[in-house]
């Protein structure tokens, strides 16, 4: 669906990117200055790479060897820029329909449908300058969607918004990612957004793409600490809500070989949810402990122990076919005599809930103690 293998020089950055994705939401994750915007500009056609190719759904947009280089307006890539870039002299409605009247792209998507999807109904007659940052981004997303794109690029659409505005717009992104049915390239330096929204994760570091793959696998890898940032390290677990306990206010989520108890999740039985569990919130016990306040304790098998020289070690444990990361001191590893293949009890202190589903969008990506 998305096949990128390009290199080129942008300013002082030597960019060499290679990744592929089966569609859905592909996240381009990297820190500031890692080349995210340069890479998306190459895919969009705003910068010409010096070699390589870019293919989307079997259409070649760029191929240095074959002499193919479609201009921006012919690539049919919906580009949502970090700074929205709405046309200030046009109403929201004229902005939304710009691709139709100026770009001659009738498009298959209905205006009303997009207006409904992004909650733009009350904004149509307004001018961009009267919109809040979050509203601007929603209009920008709608405008890109209505340009009949074969790929939607979202370049850090939430980067310029405060946390409250982000929480306003995230539910719309959830719906978008599930409903639009076109591949999305989502650029971010926030692991929360990436974990919540994406199917495939591409890591970008200093102009290189050291790794890409399914998001859960990528987040479970312990060798990418430098690219992903240590404090954000954590694993992504998929689960299904099996029961909501109203008496104690707990939601029970089945993650395969274990059932987690999570407070205040605002989900209903049957909902598919994503949980991100940070490595620093996970403790390990050599024997099942008793008399603990921590409610989530279950057995798991150690898959790997990172070889590091600092005080900490990253332990990867498997629970069924899912992975959990724990970050404990190397001294504990020695004391508990941990080794690959050993069965330990995993204790989880808190769970960040990254829901990705349609439905009430109440607590989002909030850390809740368990």
């Amino acid at each position: 669906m998305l096949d990128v293998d390009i290199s080129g020089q942008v300013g002082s950055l030597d960019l060499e990117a290679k990744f592929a994705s089966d569609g859905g939401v592909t996240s381009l994750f990297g820190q500031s200055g890692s080349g995210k915007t340069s890479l998306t500009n190459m895919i969009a056609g705003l910068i010409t790479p010096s070699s390589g190719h870019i293919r989307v759904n079997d259409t070649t947009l760029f191929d240095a060897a074959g002499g193919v280089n479609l201009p921006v307006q012919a690539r049919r890539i919906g580009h949502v820029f970090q700074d929205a870039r709405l046309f200030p002299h046009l109403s929201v409605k004229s902005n939304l329909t710009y691709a139709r009247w100026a770009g001659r792209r009738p498009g298959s998507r209905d205006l009303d449908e997009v207006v409904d999807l992004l909650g733009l109904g009350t904004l149509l007659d307004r001018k961009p300058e009267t919109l809040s940052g979050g509203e601007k981004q929603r209009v920008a997303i709608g405008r890109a969607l209505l340009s009949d794109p074969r790929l939607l690029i979202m370049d850090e659409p939430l980067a310029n918004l405060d946390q409250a505005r982000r929480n306003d717009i995230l539910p719309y992104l959830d719906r978008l990612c599930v409903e639009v049915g076109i591949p999305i390239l989502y650029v971010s330096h926030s692991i929360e957004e990436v974990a919540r929204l994406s199917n495939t994760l591409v890591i970008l570091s200093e102009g290189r793409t050291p790794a890409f793959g399914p998001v859960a696998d990528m987040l479970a890898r312990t060798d990418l600490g430098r690219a992903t940032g240590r404090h954000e390290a954590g694993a992504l677990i998929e689960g299904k809500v099996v029961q909501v306990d109203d008496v104690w206010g707990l939601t029970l989520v089945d993650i395969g070989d274990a059932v987690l108890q999570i407070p205040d999740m605002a989900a209903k039985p049957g909902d598919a949810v994503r949980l991100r569990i940070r490595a620093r919130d996970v403790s390990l016990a050599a024997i099942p402990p008793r008399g603990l306040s921590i409610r989530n304790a279950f057995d798991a098998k150690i898959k790997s122990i990172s070889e590091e020289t600092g005080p900490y070690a990253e332990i990867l444990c498997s629970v069924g076919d899912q992975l959990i990361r724990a970050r404990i001191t190397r001294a504990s590893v020695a004391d508990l005599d941990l080794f690959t293949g050993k069965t330990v009890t995993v204790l989880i202190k808190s769970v960040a809930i990254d829901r990705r589903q349609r439905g009430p969008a109440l607590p989002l990506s909030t850390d809740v103690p368990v």
Partner: protein
Amino acid sequence: MWPIETTDRARVDFFDLQPAEWQALLLTLRVATAALAVALPLAVLTAYLLARYRFPGHGIVNALVHLPLVLPPVVTGYVLLLTFGRKGPVGEFLDNVFGISFAFNWTGAALAAGVMSFPLMVRPIRLSFEAVNPKLEEAAKSLGAHRLVAFLTVTLPLALPGILGGAILGFAKAMGEFGATITFVSNIPGETRTLALALYTATQTPSGDLAAFRLTLIAAFVAFAALIASEVLARRLRARLGGGHA
């Protein structure tokens, strides 16, 4: 200003334009309008190129555009005479091939007015293009708009207040142009004698004080009307384009 039936003949006469005055006024408006019609699109194009592109010779083009602003108008008129006059290389070519002549007729006056007002138009238009975020055109292209369409639907409307300002400035300059005009196409009644030239003629005539005063009033009235009209137009534009665009 227009003939009014009244018994007080003397007062009406003062406000009743003489044929020569009408002629000078209409000629001035015709010259300035023609100059604006030809020079404004060229000024918009030049301003856009100077604002958006860095090309070899950028500085030279910029200097050439601004030359009539710093040269004595007489010099500009003389250069026009040498180039577009009957004996001038360009003038001779145009006369022979197309039968177009700028020598000593109103089109020559319009050419002089256009050349003199060109830098005054380019400057504010260029500034207003520079104030439009070029990334908006990138966004327009990503939505399928070709370069020209992106320019016409995004950059041009956003620069419109500046273009209007440049046009007003250029029109005013074209109406008042004197030095280059009189040098290039002389001072022929009905052909090249615009208000400014008629005023000059009146000041050179004994007992021409009243005529000069009347011409001054006419010029002031036209200029004032143009300013008011542009102010109203600019206010409407600003309201339509939204704030942040002067």
